[in-house]
């Protein structure tokens, strides 16, 4: 496999069984290059989020093959996949999903504490650096629930970056933000992909956001347009 390929999906087919059998992803194959900033767009029900969750390894109920960084993920156990996500995938969700009872620093550090490849001191240093890049170093010791929506989303990005993942996946990362904060998040993503070679796959409704990214993949009724 080309070492320049971050993610490769091969003939992905997925059915929903409720309320009745329905083919939501119809034999999708595509590749994402390293350092690419890709937007998945499409109307509600087009299957774009479903595809993202298959790519994220969280959804294992599909046919076809999925490779990330040359590693075949299809068929691995849930715990193996959890360990893989921990090391190689960062997530940014629409509703930021921080742990509200932990402070910002702890939230950012959690995936690294789980990974255990560095000492706590190194992780702290790295988390602080990430927060600094995102302009949040002053908020480090605040409770996550005390931050504004835009700040929380930036914390989520800092958390997604903590283990230097191969891919950052975003599910409507700007869906809940005003235009100013959306712009900020977009700028951060572009900065990451262009200057640090970070691969980014986001699902978005936001036309403007999508058009500014490197590559748009539009979906309708389970197929790429």
């Amino acid at each position, binding site marked *: 496999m080309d070492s320049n390929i971050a993610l490769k999906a091969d003939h992905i087919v997925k059915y929903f069984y409720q309320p009745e059998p329905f083919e939501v992803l119809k034999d999708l194959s595509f590749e994402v290059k390293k350092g690419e900033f890709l937007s998945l767009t499409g109307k509600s029900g087009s299957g774009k*989020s479903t595809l993202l*969750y298959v790519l*994220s390894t*969280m*959804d294992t109920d599909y046919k076809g093959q999925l490779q990330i960084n040359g590693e075949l993920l299809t068929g691995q156990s*849930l*715990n193996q996949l*959890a*360990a*893989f*996500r*921990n*090391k190689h995938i960062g*997530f940014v*969700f629409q509703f930021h*999903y*921080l*742990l509200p*009872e*932990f402070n910002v620093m*702890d939230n950012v550090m*959690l*995936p690294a*504490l*789980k*990974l*255990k490849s560095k000492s*706590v001191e190194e992780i702290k240093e790295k988390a602080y650096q990430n927060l600094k890049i995102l302009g949040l170093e002053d908020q480090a010791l605040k409770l996550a629930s005390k931050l504004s929506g835009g700040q929380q989303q930036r914390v989520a990005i800092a*958390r997604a970056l903590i283990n230097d993942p191969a891919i950052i996946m975003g*599910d409507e990362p700007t869906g809940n933000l005003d235009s100013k904060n959306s712009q900020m998040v977009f700028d951060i993503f572009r900065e990451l992909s262009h200057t640090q070679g970070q691969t980014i796959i986001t699902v978005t409704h936001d036309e403007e956001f999508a058009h500014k990214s490197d590559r748009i993949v539009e979906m309708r009724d389970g197929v790429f347009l």
Partner: protein
Amino acid sequence: MMLSTNYKIAAVHLTSRIKQTIVALLGVTFGISMYVFMNSFMTGVNDTQTVLAFTALAHIRIYNDGPADNTNLVKKVYGQNTLSNIRNAKVIQYTEGIKNTAAIFNLVRKQPEVIGITPQININVFFRNSGNKLNGTLSGVDVENEDRLFNISTYMIAGKWQDLQYRPDGVILGSGLAQLLSLNIDDNVNVLTSDGVTKNYKVIGIFQTNVANTDKTKAYINISAARQLLAKNQDYVTDIQVNVNDFEKTAPVVARLAPVIPYKVESWQMSNQQLEAGSKLRDIIAKAVSLTILLVAGFGIYNIMNMTINEKIKEIAILKAMGFSSGDVTSIFLTQAMVIGVIGGFIGMILGFIVADIVNHIPFKIGGLNYLPMAYHIKDYALSFIFGLITTLIAGYLPAMKASKIDPVDIIRS
């Protein structure tokens, strides 16, 4: 380090919703304190019962059971098919009492479990004080050893038990018997045996065991005086009473002695099954009640853990998305259950002790008791703690398993 991360999450969950944690803690605390209290109380009652029972009862009794039913000897010789007609058959008792007691004493004393042994001559007699006649049991006893086994001296309400040793003319009466015969210290009482022998004794003491039946029917004289009364030799004994170090464990001693002693060897459990049944039944009730309480407490924990997990379902999903395994999630929630179990257990043991101590001070003046009985055994406390921990672990395990099975996609997408 991973564990400490899980512990940290568990700690935040516990402290961020302190009220629910306290409610769960109270459930365990209450359950365990009731377990401690109920068991201490029941053990106390059983101990009291045991003490009362063993004022008149030895752990093992050796006695002459009398001959078996030998009235139809013809049948033994000619078999079942022979018709025999024997009317008004009589039993001839060849031996009365126990012969060769010194040898039996030696044999019994050699058993390592035996802590006390005393001979008795028990005679059914009439006690008479002029017009008043009452039948009862006159016990001829070895004064010192009798006291060692039954602590009679502690039940004396008048006179001294030890005086019996030097007073072949003295008798110590049960309080009920003395009252019914209108007798006091230094009065005379006349004793009539079944063989028609009468003899006067002087009342030198009165005892009260609070076992009404004993107090109303029993009197003690020196064993030599008893032999004299029956015109028997200095080896004559009707009963040999034996105490062992653990009254629950009479069976092995009986099993060892019975084949080599040509008399009936009977443990207290055999002769007083109702006592054993009573004590066992109380144990069962206590265990049933306290386990029920623990079960209810367990359901409380189960509910609260379930609520916690429903509240934290998004956080669990995000932890899993970030790469926390099912095992991590289980350990996060089991840790919470464990913390609740351990803290609740400790407070419960302390509260249980306090409740037990309060109840132990409630007056209860029946049957020689002053206060409600209570036992303070480390074993009860340890068991309650262990049961409490097991309950919380089970109650926490089910919701923790549920949490570990949460599918992050379902939660994040909905």
